[in-house]
C-alpha cells in the first residue's frame, strides 16, 4: 500500500473514532430510549464509513459495498424494531425514560 492511501486511511480513522466517541457517550449517558437508538445509529454509521474506507484503501470496493448494503438493510430492521418497542413502552408508561422501567429487579 502506498504511503498516501495509508495517510488518507489514518485521516478518516481519526474522525471516525471521534464519531464513535459521540455515539458511545450518547448511549452510555442518556436515559431516553429514542436518544439511545440515535446513539446506536451514529455508531453504525461510523462503522459503515469505516468499512467503505477500508475497501477504498485496500482496493476492494466491490466487496465492501456489498457488505455495507447488507449492513444498512439489517440496521433499518433493527431500528424499526427498537422504535416499535420504544413506542410500546410509551403506551404503557407514558414515558420514554429507561429509568422509569426498573420493574424487573429482584
Amino acid at each position, binding site marked *: 500500500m502506498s504511503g498516501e492511501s495509508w495517510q488518507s486511511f489514518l485521516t478518516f480513522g481519526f474522525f471516525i473514532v471521534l464519531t464513535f466517541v459521540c455515539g458511545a457517550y450518547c*448511549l452510555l449517558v442518556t436515559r431516553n430510549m429514542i436518544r439511545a437508538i440515535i446513539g446506536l445509529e451514529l455508531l453504525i454509521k461510523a462503522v459503515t464509513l*469505516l468499512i467503505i474506507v477500508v475497501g477504498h484503501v485496500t482496493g476492494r470496493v466491490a466487496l465492501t459495498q456489498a457488505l455495507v448494503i447488507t449492513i444498512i438493510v*439489517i440496521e433499518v430492521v433493527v431500528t424499526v424494531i427498537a422504535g416499535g418497542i420504544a413506542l410500546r413502552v410509551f403506551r404503557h408508561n407514558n414515558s420514554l425514560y429507561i429509568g422509569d*422501567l426498573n420493574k424487573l429487579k429482584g
Partner: protein
Amino acid sequence: MPSLLILVPLIGLVALNLPNKDIMRKLAFWFALGLFITQILLAIQHHPVFWNYQLEKMDSFFRVNFSVDHLSFIMLLCIGIVSTASLLVARHTIHDEKERFKLINLLIIASIGMSGTVMTSDIFSMYIFLEITAIASFILIAFEKNIYALEGAFKYLMLSATATIMILTSIAILILAAGSTSFSDISQAVRSPGNNIVVVAIGLFLCGLMIKGGVVPFHAWVPDAYSAAPASVSVLLAGIVTKVAGIYTLIRTITAIFGLDGATRSALLMLGAISILVGAFAALGQKNMKRMLAYSSISQIGYIIIGFGTGTFLGIAGAVFHLFNHSMFKALLFVNASAVESRLGTMDMDKMGGLSAKMPVTGATSVIGMLSAAGIPPLSGFWSKLMIIVALWRSGDHAYSIIAILAGVVTLAYLLIMQRKAFFGKDNESVSEAGLGIKTASVMLAGVLVGIGISFPFIFNRFLAPLREIIHR
C-alpha cells in the same frame, strides 16, 4: 447439500405466509416439527451422502461455502432438540392460534439463523446469521407486549446491537489486514505478530461475542431477558440462542481464526472463573424461579469458558460437551418452569410447594435436570464437568479447578433450594399436571440426559473424539 438446511425452511416459511392462512396455521406446527426432527436425525447420522454431496445445479446457483465439521454436528443436534422442545411448549402455552402461528414463524427464523451460524466459514456470513437470530429473539422476547417483556427486549436489543458494532468494527480491521472475509484468509493474516490494530480487532470481536453470550461482566441483560420472555421463548433463549450466538462463535473463531495464545488463554480462564462464582452466588439469593435459572446459566457458561480456556483437547472437548449438556438440562429446567407457570401463573418460589405430588412428570424430570446440572453421576452433566476439571488440573491451573469443584457444591445448594421450595413439601393447592406437549418435551430432554450419561463411552468416541480436528488445524 448442507445449504438445504437453510433453503428448505426459507421456502417453507414463504409458503406458510401465502394466502389461505387457515390451513397454513394448522400446518405450521407440523412443518416446524418435521423440520427440527429432520435436523436432529441428520446431525446424529452425519451421513456423508447428505453432508458432502454437491448438487450440481444448486451449487452453481447457491454458491455458498458451508463447511460442516464435528463441532457443527453437535451444535446442529442441540439446535434441533431445543427447538423441538420450545415448539412443543409453545403449542400448550399459547392458546390463540394466530399468535402461535407468528411465534412458530419466528422460531423457524431463529433456528435458520442458528443453523447458518454453526455451518458458515465466512466471518461476515456469521455476522448476518447472528443478526437473524438476534432479531428473531428481540421480537420473541417482546412477544407478550407487557412492560417486563418490552424492557427485557429493549435491554437485549441495545446490548446485542452494541456487540454487533464491536464485531463489525473488528471485521473492518480484519478486512484491512486480510482483504477477504473467509476464515482461512483471515487466519493467515492474523497470525503474523506485531500488529497492534489487529490485536485491538481481536479484543473487540471477543468482547462482542461475550456480550452476546452473557459472560460476566457482560451479563446484565440475561436475567431480565430470560424471565420476561414467554415460556417457550425462554426455553429457546436459555437453551440454545445465547450458546450459539456467544459461546459457539467464541470457540469457533478462536480455534479457526485467532488462535489461543497466552493472553487470550488467561483472560478466558479468569472470566470463566468469575462467571462461575458470580452466577452461582447470585442464583442463591433469587426468589423467582426463572431468574434463578438465568443466573445458573451464567455460572454454567463460566464452566464452558474455563474448560475452553485450557486449550487442551480434553478441555475443549469437555467444554463442547458441557455446552451440549447445559443446553439440554437448562432447556429441561425451563420447560419445567413453564409447566409450573402455566398451572400456577407465578414464578415466585415462595408461593409454590408440593408440586411433585400434583405434577409427577414435571417433578421427576426436574430432579433429573437438577442432578445433571449439579454434576451427579451417572448423568451427562457429571461427565462434562469431570472432563473440564481434569483438564484444568492437568494443565496446571489447580486454583481454577478447585473453584470449579467448589462452585459445583453451590450449584447443588441453589438447585436443592429450588426443588425444596417448589416441588417438595406440603401444599393444598389443587393443580393438575401440565399439558401433553410440555410433558413430551420434558420427558424427551430427561431421556437425552440419562441416555447420554449412561452411554458416555460411545458418545465420546462418536461425537467428541473427532473434535481433535478443530484443534490441530
